[in-house]
């Protein structure tokens, strides 16, 4: 399998695949982080996660249009603002959904699965009615396109680097929020023991709402970033949902560190294998590998140790 390549080719293969794997890793982290917060911390299986991402993508699309029409001179900067708006829009919708649907279904995880699945269908059809069934093209500012040439064979796509920085930034921010802020302490308290957290004076309903909104908001930012690498259409969210759940479940739902470790493992495994076999086969082997590990460790890679 290596015979047809020269040594220098092989070296650059591994370098390039390493980079491809890192980009895939960042994409996975961005996708999964929002879901990990909601699923891991609240136990809500949010099937509409992909649709929240696409909401972010559509917000980006609208923002790009507004800038193109009214502020063409600032067009190169619109993407930053679009991500902020995507966060706000998806977060606001998340808060609304939590208030309207989710809070009535706590402690009934299977019902949240059905409810959010229904929600995802409703959102898809709404996007279809508002933006049309066809995919929309999001125009990107020039500085996000193209690549940095490192050597003759190694080129780093700029949008890939951007996604990496974004993933790093958001994970750090979430990490600080969860483990260094007062709100994070409250969330973790609610996760570990809801009645006790309530008894010591934590407003659990409010914590839930903010947590859900934050998870959805991060999904919105992810969706906004993915307009650079993927499609924006009413059903595009479905393209991400399976991988997202895979990463979260494999990592151990309650651990954010687990999510990151699992995203890393899956992305590296997949991108290395993709090089030496067909894309479909690589996916099959990745899934088999995940199934095998989950058979050995049903709770996922990392688990929270609490006395129950």
């Amino acid at each position, binding site marked *: 399998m290596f015979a047809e390549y020269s040594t220098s080719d092989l070296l650059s293969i591994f370098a*390039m*695949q390493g980079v491809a794997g890192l980009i895939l890793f960042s994409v996975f982290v961005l996708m999964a982080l929002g879901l990990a917060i909601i699923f891991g911390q609240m136990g809500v299986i949010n099937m509409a996660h992909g649709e929240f991402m696409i909401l972010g993508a559509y917000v980006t699309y609208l923002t790009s249009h507004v800038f193109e029409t009214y502020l063409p001179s600032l067009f190169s900067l619109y993407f930053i603002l679009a991500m902020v708006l995507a966060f706000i829009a998806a977060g606001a919708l998340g808060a609304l959904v939590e208030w309207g649907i989710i809070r009535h279904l706590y402690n009934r995880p299977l019902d949240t699965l059905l409810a959010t699945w229904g929600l995802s269908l409703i959102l898809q059809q709404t996007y279809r009615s508002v933006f*049309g069934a066809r995919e929309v093209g999001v125009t990107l500012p020039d500085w996000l396109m193209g690549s940095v*040439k490192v050597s003759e*064979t190694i080129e780093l796509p700029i949008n890939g680097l951007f996604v990496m920085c974004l993933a790093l930034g958001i994970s750090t921010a979430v990490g600080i929020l969860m483990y260094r802020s007062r709100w994070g302490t409250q969330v973790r308290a609610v996760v570990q023991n809801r009645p006790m957290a309530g008894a010591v004076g934590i407003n659990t309903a409010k914590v839930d709402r903010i947590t859900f909104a934050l998870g959805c908001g991060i999904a919105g930012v992810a969706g906004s970033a993915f307009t650079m690498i993927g*499609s924006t259409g009413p059903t595009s969210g479905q393209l991400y949902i399976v991988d997202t759940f895979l990463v979260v479940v494999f990592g151990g739902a309650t651990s954010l560190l687990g999510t990151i470790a699992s995203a890393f493992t899956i992305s590296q495994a997949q991108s290395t294998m993709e090089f030496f076999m067909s*894309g479909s086969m690589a996916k099959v082997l990745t899934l088999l590998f995940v199934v095998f590990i989950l058979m050995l460790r049903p709770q996922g890679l990392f688990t929270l140790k609490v006395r129950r």
Partner: protein
Amino acid sequence: MKTLFFKGEQAKALTKTAKAISWKTCLFTLAASFAFSTAHAADVNTTGLAVTDKTVKVGILHSVTGTMAISETGSVQAEKLAIEQINAMGGVLGRKIEFIQEDGASDWPTFAEKSKKLLVNDKAAAVFGCWTSASRKAVLPIFEQYNGMLYYPTFYEGLEQSKNVIYTGQEATQQIIAGIDWVTKTKGAKSFYLLGSDYIWPRTSNKIARKHIEKLGLKVVGEEYYPLGHTQFNSVINKIKLTKPDVIYAIVVGGSNVAFYKQLKAAGIDMTKEKPLVLTISVTEDEVLGIGGENMQGAYASMKYFQSLTNDNNTKFVAAFKARWGKDVVIGDVTQAAYLGPWLWKAAVEKAGSFDIDKVRAASPGIELTTAPEGYVKIHPNHHLWSKTRIGHARPDGQYDVVFETKDLIEPDPFPKGYQ
């Protein structure tokens, strides 16, 4: 008898005919043609289809919800436009076409169920619909069991020929072989990288492409498939960079398309430099909308129709389509093929003088359409269309410049020998 303004042969023929037709036969013909135009429903419809003295019912069966709605919307619009135009011209055998639209909802069992409804309950005289091969395969047994007539618009993998289907799109060899010949002749391509989504159409098409490339004595340096909906193409782009093919032959479909072309551009492969050159059979103007013209610029597409064709038929068609569905719509290959459906059916019904499915089928081979936007098409006895293949060069505005078209119509060959 005076034959003042006619010359030679023509004049002779005319005099002969004039002698042959007495006033009696004249009257008879007149009466007959009168009777024909208001022929009783029972005479033109012996099998109980939904035909009255004034109307005839047909079905439109596409997905307007779900994943495939992206692709099928254009087909629905084209079929409705064709039906409206036919009605404005007086309908078919003097009957106005009424359509019943059903939603296949991107779900194959739903397609089967709805097609049964259209044939059994509504007694549709013809059905225009389906898009993916999977949906066609799902409805095929129903059309054969209840003897319906389906006009199927999408370019597809071939390997099928049903007496109950007229295929108005190209089958694989029509679309592929001319494109590969063109790229080897005019661009001197020697090596190819085949890439596709992982299902029957790309796999069968690439099989034909590979056979043809090898027949020409050229090289396939890689062949790769990714699951439908795959969004990460960095690995395959790396492989392409290493193997340095002259041509990337891409049959990626759906949302994956957007990811593939965006990532190709981001990875520094500039398609306008044509090193490597990108040749696709799956990206019509419809798909470019989602990909973005600037990401597609410089690629070549090989299919039978492009919106930018400049013949008179197409100019009229594009104008009518935009007047009906808005000035921003784009028209892709399949949309045009869907537009042909109702017209081909009308021609066949009128040739047969009957709506009966068996008579329409018998009348279909040899039906010509000189008003087709793509130019001229003719139904082959194998139920596919003779058509030309064209190469389009993608412009940044999302349209294609037609840079090549085959001289002759290409014969459809759904079961190509030596390519399976």
